[in-house]
């Protein structure tokens, strides 16, 4: 068993860092919350839409960041125009790479392209699995900025992470033996 007696409530404006050693169930908990696995006893109640960025980024490497983002927007029910998607990519530091296939981008740039998905702005809850992986200092800064802005807009986020996010007013939730 990975965890028991787990009780977690996420309210608007909450930013929760999910910590714990490898194998303590951080990813599993996120997948349970997202509804990707039903292999648990208990109840998950969701108040609204959410965005999930797993450790597999959800990018097709043969497509360009713009094509990936266009697809994500369409399946998430957003009718964002190409222009606004391009400006999203610019915001995450991928200006000039809109038309480069993702396989030619570095791991960090791919991560940025995956995170751009969060910016459609219609999901009040973000579930992020190791959002800082492969990112440079500027990239980590970008994640912090995105989270800060999301929180200011009344959003909430749950981040499974090994590196501290380095943001103020975050809550910690430790899993596993370290708890």
């Amino acid at each position, binding site marked *: 068993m990975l965890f028991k007696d787990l009780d977690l409530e996420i309210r608007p404006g909450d930013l929760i860092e999910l910590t714990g050693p490898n194998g303590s169930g951080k990813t599993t908990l996120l997948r349970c919350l997202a509804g990707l696995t039903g292999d648990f006893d208990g109840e998950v109640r969701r108040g609204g839409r959410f965005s999930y960025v797993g450790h597999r980024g*959800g*990018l097709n490497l043969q497509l360009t960041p713009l094509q990936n983002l266009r697809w994500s927007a369409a*399946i998430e029910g957003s*009718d964002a125009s190409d222009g606004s998607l391009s400006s999203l990519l610019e915001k995450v530091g991928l200006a000039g790479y809109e038309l480069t*296939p993702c396989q030619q981008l570095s791991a960090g740039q791919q991560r940025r392209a995956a995170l751009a998905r969060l910016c459609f702005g219609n999901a009040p809850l973000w579930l992020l699995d190791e959002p800082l992986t492969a990112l440079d200092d500027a990239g980590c800064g970008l994640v912090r900025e995105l989270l800060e802005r999301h929180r200011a807009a009344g959003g909430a986020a749950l981040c499974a992470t090994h590196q501290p996010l380095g943001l103020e007013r975050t809550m910690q939730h430790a899993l596993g033996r370290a708890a």
Partner: protein
Amino acid sequence: MTAAALDRAPSIGRAFTAQLQRDLTIAFRSRSELINPLMFYVMGISMFPLGVGPGAERLSEIAPGVLWVLALLSTLLSLDALFRRDFDDGTLEQLVLNVDPLFVGVLAKVLAHWLVIGLPLTLLSPLAALMLFLPGAAVPTLVLTLLLGTPILSLLGAVGAALTVGLKRGGLLLTLIILPLYVPVLILGAGAVTAVIDGVDPSAQLAWLAVILALMLTLTPFAAALALRVGLE
């Protein structure tokens, strides 16, 4: 349909189009995956005159079966990639999480698969028929049976591909699951072509193929969507 579902109808349509467009773009980016099943089809068929002998009489006798079996195997060859690539890169998770109802996304993926594999196979079949001395009168029926049959192969295959998506080496298992299910399609398809050669009206077989297609079109997207949710766990 409920009022809420009607409200979402435009976004469901957009999700379908976006998924179709995306899968077609990817298919044309990786041309080898696109061409390999077709090459396999033509090369597989060209083995028969070499193995059985080039006699027109003997070849035309086995032609309907051979053409259909090869179409079936070529489709099988391409099925493993239907969901696996998306599973590996995490886009399948996004599809499952965001497209509601999920069968819409599955249907778009299957349509893309058919457009990329089944349709070209059908269009290529008159050429392949030529290699096996299939009588000219039977060629339109061959094309028609493949036109009706290859979508069934893609739809049924999607269920198998969805069931095995979480397995590391699901390819062979997929074949074992799906091949028996292809048997009725093979019998009806090859049977219709043989009927024309024998001077019998093939409309019964064609009607049955159409019935199966209608059934599969309405049932398998749901089954595949369900299997995907299970496969992701």
